[in-house]
Structures are given as C-alpha cells and as structure tokens.
C-alpha cells in the first residue's frame, strides 16, 4: 500500500542545509496498522507529511496505493488524498465555522459523494456524538472534537489513514476513548493505518512499529527495509 525508496528530506537553514530525513526505504502492506514512534524532532511528522503527500521529498520515491507520489504535482496529490487518504491530527483541525456534522461532511463534499449527509449522521452516531451534530468545534470538548475528526477521517472510507499524535492533546480518559474508537473503526473498514506518536502504549497496539531517531529508522526497521529491498 505504501512504499518508499531512498527517501530524503533536507531544508535550507542559515547555517547551510539540514537533513531531516536520511535515506529511508520501507513498505507497509494494505490493512496493516503501523506506528512511527520517536522523540520530538526525530523527523516522524516530516515522514508522515511526505507519505501523505502534504510535502515533497528532496529525493527518493514514494508509492501510495500503487501511484508514484513523487511524480505528482500538488493538484494530483490533493486528488489522491481526497480519494484514498484520511487524516487525524493532534490539534483536531476542524473548520471552526462549520458544525460537527458539516465538518464530517467536508471531505465527502470535496470528493463529490452522494447521500453523504445520511452517511455523516450515521458515522456521527457511531462516534457517539449525534446529539452534538449542530455544535461548533469551540462548543465541544477536546475529546469530542477528536471524535468528530475521526468520523471525518472515515466518512470517505479511505484506503489509508494517517494519524498524527491523535491523543496528544487529550487527557488519559479521553485519549483511551479516542484510541478505542480509532482502532475499532479501522478494523471495521480494513483501512491501512499509519500513526505517528511518541506514546509507546498506543504504538504497541499497532501491528508494527517504525522507530525514528535523528532522521533515521531504527535497526528493526532497517531489517524490514532490507527485507523489502
């Protein structure tokens, strides 16, 4: 489902260039749940942004659902994201001026799905927030906002779901609720889940763990990479 080959990312700084990602090669199979773990600043969010086509790599190849992301322009990547990818963010990233239901509807509308509204209501019920459909994000608690974000991520039945620290902004109780919801919906829909976190407990719930350290994958991942290569 996801393949990378010799993927790197460097950025210019005032002292020259900084290599955030050193050449990385690995693959993730369809339906797998994978956690990318590592300390802050290790490059895991950068890797996620490249895998999801939100940013472009300096060199190397990325294949997403059989399509070469690194050969696409911004528009093509957006289309691909709209068709195959869902997102969950640490900061929820809901559109403040839309209600909970409308936020869930947003990707469906962008993708031009029909009967999206009923589907959105169903999924809102699944995340236990049907009574909050007409509430705006700032009228919801952090946990509720993240549940809305999860519902939004699943409405288009994405093939791949990227989650960036999905419980990072939540307390333990809400964090657990969100975790359960995320994994149960993921199981139901058979989505490939790529999750970035520094929460080792959350990471352990995934099939595999990729460890980022100073822009490099840990040894276990290297073995994986060799296996692929």
């Amino acid at each position, binding site marked *: 489902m996801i393949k990378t080959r010799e993927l790197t990312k460097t950025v210019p700084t005032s002292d020259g260039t900084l290599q955030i990602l050193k050449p990385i090669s690995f693959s993730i199979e369809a339906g797998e749940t994978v956690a990318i773990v590592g300390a802050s600043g290790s490059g895991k969010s950068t890797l996620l942004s490249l895998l999801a086509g939100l940013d472009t790599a300096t060199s190397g190849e990325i294949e997403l659902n059989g399509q070469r992301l690194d050969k696409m322009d*911004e528009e093509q990547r957006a289309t691909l*994201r*709209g068709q195959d990818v869902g*997102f969950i963010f640490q900061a929820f990233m809901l*559109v403040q001026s839309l209600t909970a239901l*409308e936020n869930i509807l947003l990707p469906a*509308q*962008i993708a031009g799905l029909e009967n999206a509204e009923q589907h959105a209501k169903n999924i809102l019920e699944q995340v236990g927030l049907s009574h909050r459909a007409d509430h705006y994000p700032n009228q919801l608690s952090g946990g509720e906002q993240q549940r809305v974000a999860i519902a939004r991520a699943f409405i288009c039945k994405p093939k791949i779901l990227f989650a960036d620290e999905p419980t990072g902004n939540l307390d333990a109780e809400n964090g657990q609720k969100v975790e359960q919801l995320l994994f149960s919906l993921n199981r139901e829909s058979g989505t490939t889940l790529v999750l970035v976190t520094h929460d080792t407990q959350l990471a352990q719930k995934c099939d595999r763990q990729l460890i980022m350290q100073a822009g490099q994958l840990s040894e276990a991942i290297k073995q994986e990479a060799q296996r692929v290569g």
Partner: protein
Amino acid sequence: MWANLAWRLFRHEMRRGELTIILFAIVLSVSAVLSLSLFSARLQSALTEKSAEFIAADRELVSSKKVEDSWLQKASQLGLNQALQRYTRSMVFANNKMQLVDVRAVDNHYPLKGKVKISVTPFAPPQETDTLPKTGEVWIDSRLFQVLQVNLGDDIEIGDAVLKIGGVVADIPDRGFSVFGNDHLLLMSMQDFAATHLDGPGSRIGYSYFFTGTAAQLSDYDDWITPNLNRELHRWRSIEDDDSAIGRSVKRAERYFLLASLLAIVLASVSIAVAAQRYSQRHFDPVAIMKTLGASRATVQKIYLVQLLLITFSAIAIGLVIGFAVQQLVIQAVADKVSVDLSGWYWQPILMAVFTGFICALLFSMYPLMRLFSVPPLRVLRRDIGANLSSKSIQLLSCGGAIFLLMLIFSGDWKMSLILFGCGILLVLGLIAFTFVLIRLGHKLGQGRISAWQLAWARIRRRSMDNAVQLISFSITLLLLLVVLVMRNDMIGQWRAQLPQDTPNYFIANITAQQLPELKQHFADLNVKTGDLYPLIRGRMAAVNGEMVRTAVSKDDDDTENRGRRGLGREAGLTWLDQIQDGNKLVAGKWFSGQSDELEVSVEQKIAERLDIKLGDVLTFNIGARVLEAKVTSLREVNWQSMKPNFYFVLQPQAMQDFPATYVTSFYLDGQDKALLTQLLAPFASISLFDVDARINQLREIIDQVSLAVEFILVLVLIAGALVLVSQVQASMDERQQELTILRTLGAKGRLIRLSVIFEFVIIGLVAGLMAAAANELTLYLLQSQIFEMESQFHWQFWWQAPLIGAGLVGALGAASCWRLLSLNTAHLLRNMF
C-alpha cells in the same frame, strides 16, 4: 459541491460574526459613496436650479446675430422651453436729458428661471413680479428716474420710438454682477423693439436665447448645438461655466463634494484592505484543512470567491439601504436651510456605489485571497507555516491600482486623482522610512526591566512590518480627515471673507472732485462710512504698439466672461492709483516707479493674455478727444469675486493729472438704515447710485447654503473615518490577542497589559498624526493651488493638533479594545486561540 460548501461557510460565518469586519467595510464604502454622492447630486441640482436664476434659464445662447430658425425648431422638437431677449446699449432722451442705457427687449416667456423685480416707486423695496412691460411702455431702473428727472407716466425716447415709462424695474435675473459694467437698465416689450429701429445698419444688437428643460433634453441639445456654434458669433452658457462669484462658489463646492466622496472611497478602501487581510489570515487553517482533505486549488478558489461575492452582494445591498437612509436623514436635517428636491432620482450615485463596492471588495481582497489560496496543506502539521505567497509588489499594485482607478473613474479628473494619489504614495514612503527609525528607537527604548513602556516599544520593534501597515492605514485615515476638515475651513473662511458682514452694498459714481469734500462731510454727519475713493474716467483702448485693436476687441466681445464686462474694448473704466489695490496681486513687472519718463499702465492679467498684451507694450487710449500712450510695466491678478471696484487698466497718477475725473466709492447700509438713502443722496443730484444689496444677499444666501452642505459632508466623512479607525484598531487587536493572552496567562497584571497597549497605540497615533499633518500640508497646497483655485496657506496649528488628536484617538480606541479583551476570561481566550 463547492457552491454548496461556499454557501454553508458563508451562512455560518455570517451567523457567527466572522464576516462582520469585511462586510462592515464594504457596507461602509457603499453607504458612504452613495450617501455622499446622492446628497451632493441632489444638492448640486438644487444649487444649479437656484443659480440658473442668474442666467434666467438652464442654458443661454448669446449671439451677436439672429440665429437660424432651425436651431430654435430643434429646441422645440426636443421639448425645451424658450425665451428671447434682444439687448443693446443706446441713448435715451427724456425731459431734455439723455443717458446711455442698457436696453433689454424681452418676449413674454422671459424669464424662464428667476423673477423680474420691480419697485412701486423709485428706490422703494423691490418685489418679485410675473408681469412684464406692456406694449407701448418701458420699465426703467430707479437711477434712471434720478438721472433723467422723470416720473412714472412720462414719455421716453428710444431710437425712433416714444414710449411711456410704466414701471420701476429693480432687477432682472440675468443682469450680471459687475458693479461698474452695468449701465442704467431699461426693460421693454419685444413687440416695441422694431419700432425703435435700433437694429439699423451699424448697430450692435445682441440676442439672448434662453432654454430650460430636463437634464436629458438639455444634454441632447448641448450635443446638437455645440458643433454648430461659431466662436466668433456665439456663446453657449450654462450656470456651470459661469465665472461669476456664484458660479465659482458652486463649482468649488462641487469639487469639494467630489473630493469628499473620493476620500470616502479611499477611507473605505483602506478599511476593506485591513478587513480583507484579517479575513484571509483567519482562513489559513480552513484552507489548509480543505487542501489536506483533497480539495484542489481551483475548488478552494471557487469556494472563497463565491463566499466573497456573497459577502459583497449582501454588503452592497445593506450599504445601499443605509446610504440612502443617511442621505435622506441629512437632507431632512438641512431641509429648512436648503430646499433640496427629494423626488428626483439619480442613477449615477447608485451605480457608482455598487461599482465601488465591487471594485473595492475584489481588488482589495485580491492579494489577501491570493495569499490564502497559496497556504500549503502542510500547515495542518506545521502551524507556523503561513501563506507561500509574499509579494508586497502585488499588494501595492492591486491596492494602489484600485484606489487610483476608482479616483479617476469617480472624479474624471486626472489632476485631482494624481495629486491625492501622489501625496498618498509620498506619505507611505515617508512612513516606511519612519518605521525604520521607530524600530531603531524601539530597540533602545525597549530594553530594561519589564514595564508597560518597555513592552510597548518591544512590540513596536518586533511587529515592525505589521505596524508599518497599521501606521499607513492610520495615517491615511487621519490624512483624509484632515484634508476634508482643513479644506472645508479654508474654503468657508475664504467665502465668508469674500463677503464680510459689512460688505458695501451701495456704490456711488460720478462724484466730481469739487463734490468730494462736501460728500465726505455729509456722509460723516449721517454716520455712514465710505470706502476707498477711486478716480474714474471712461476711455477706450485703441491700439497696442500702434496696431489698432478692433479685431482683437470684437473677438473679445464674444469671449467676455460675463455680461458686466461686455463693454470692454469700446470703453473701459480707467483709474489711477499710487499703490496697488487690496485684493490685486502683481504677477509680472513692477508697480509704477515714477522714475521713468514714459507713462506707465498696469494691466489685468487675463485681459492681457486675451488681447496678447505683454510687458513693455505701448497701449493707446482714447479719452474723450485726447489720446494717451502708456507703457505696460506690470500685470496684475485681480480677484473679480471681491465686491470691490476692479479695473482692467490702472494708470500712473502723473499721467492723469490733466484729465477731469469723477470718483467712485462704496458704503454699507444695513436693512434698517435704508431710509437714509434719500437723505444721503439728496444734496448730490448728479451722483449715480448702484444698489447691489439684493445681489449680495443672494450671493450670501447661496454661500451659506453651500457652506452648510459642506459642513454636513464633513460630518459624514468624519463619522466614516471614525468607524474606519475603530475597525482598524479592532483588527490590530486581533493580531495582538495571542501575545496579550499569553501575557495574561503568565500572570501579567491587567494594568500592565492595558498600559502597554495604550502606549503602543499612542506612539503609533502620534507618528500617524505627525505624518498625516505633513502630507496634509502638501496635499492641500496642491489641491488648493491646482484644483480649487484658492490661495493656499500654511496650517501650522495642525502640526501639533494632528499628532495629539492621533495619539488621543488611536490610544483611546486601543484602550477600549484592550479593555474588552481583558474583560474576557483567560480560558476563553486560550480556547479561541488554539
């Protein structure tokens, strides 16, 4: 899909007040433009209507020959009303006396505008009448009764006809304003004119054709007749091209309304620019989210353009309603002072308001929207990433271009637009330079322990670019308010100065040198103060450097600026003075030195231009049977609007010693003392009296009305400006909110935060005020000297007032916004922030 989403976003954001600022800015621009231009259109029409009374019509065709019948038939076809007047100067005889008079023969449609005024007996108070002299009779003015020593019912001989004096004419609408150009007036019926045979060979009969009609009819006729006119024979007049005091005042007021509307547009544009910037920044996240969720750039563009169009449409609709209501309120408020017709409907102001709304909304939002569209999806992960696009040149081009385009379209006046725009650019450049000084200052002053002062300077330094934008918007707002305010002060001041309360309302002429001491004593005994005495002699300028001026003169006759000076070329009033008159300005050469052997003459600048007279030319005057040659040693600019005797030619006193002069002077009598007139003049039967009281009152009335209208426009612009300032401060508080919230969260006391914000705004207001004062001086100088034809003056008082007002106003508004922010609870602020 995107339309649905755009509509949903628009609906929710509208409900949640997210769009208030940008909506408010467009509403402001539309309502300001509509109310100002609708009000000024209505007022101009009211003033033009009133002023039209001064030419007795909406249009007048003055011709030295009878025009072809087809011209009048065309006017009839177009539905215009017409009247005819034939005029000439001729000797009249009565009671064994003779006098040159201004003969006006009119048909029974005359006058189309205004009223003829008559008196029951000579010098009795004038009253309006709808009647005209009957066949076989004439009406003459009070002075002519005095000069000819005739009574009502006596006969008077004009050319070959003998007619009966049937009335006292006090005034006719198209008499003209010149105090000395007017001969005694004689009004008669057109039917009697043929019998006078005044139109025989060699006579100089003029024809005035008067027309009234709707604006459209007049404009059609304007278009039709203009190509047919012969400059040598015809003059096509409307009150708009009237160069009299009234005409000029109305014109100047129109320019002021135009200026005020232009400035209102700029004000609104500034507020839209600020609002659009804020709108764009607030939507960075939604755009990043939509792009992340797969929206293409085109989809995002469509969503926001539709949203902007929805905002624009709603704002224009609201703005039109508010603008119309404001205009209606203002008109009702001035109703008892100015009679403005509310029934007329003017499409142009409405179209202009709608157009302004669109242009402002689209062009000023262009750059902020382009920035918004460039926000990368990566922002969902990296919140510090903003827009990818950062090109100040696009911003300056789109904003500057929009402002200039609007100014030009609205005013149709390149010069005014360039002056305002150029001064604005200079102001912006000056402010950018000043910002760098502030940054350096801020670096020094912002050091040391944490205090409100230090926080304020630190913020100014850190937010230098944002502050530069803010400084520019504050300064432009203050500049525009200053320009409107000071221009109004200067303009009204100069109008009032033109007609002070004791402006002479009577002129007396034909005073002999022998009568002078007695007259002075007599007037002093009756407690009436006379003005300056001017010697006067009638003379004719016959040649320039030995070349006869006949052709030049006949051309001039067709070209004269108003009827009062029509006689120039054949005979002009010549005077001689030691010193240049008050209100005259030497523009070339030197005043009489008295050293030269040659006789010297000073010539009025415009007539010199028209007759191609240059310094050093020798002019020949025929005075009676004598010939006098004088060398032009100076050219003077004359303020013809002053109600004072003014002269085309002023001669050196030595040249005139041998000529028997009469004198003219003026005096002021207020309404209650008018009974004194007869007593004043009784001992001096030969003296002629010129009563300009009614003229002055009319002029004063119009100027008062225009002044009042100008005051209202000023108030409207000031309110609009204040609202813009509020929205600017509001917008900038938004930007400061995050920092203040953090300070608050970290436990900074409300007083510290509040004071630091007040200091920051006071410093910005102070600088904005100072820079606005400087730019104001330049703008006013250019506007007054180039557009308003006014004397420009230095306004030193605004150099300290503007910074103080700027500091006070901006500081107070900052404090108010800050107070609102600090009254919210910190948790609420934090939640809104993240």
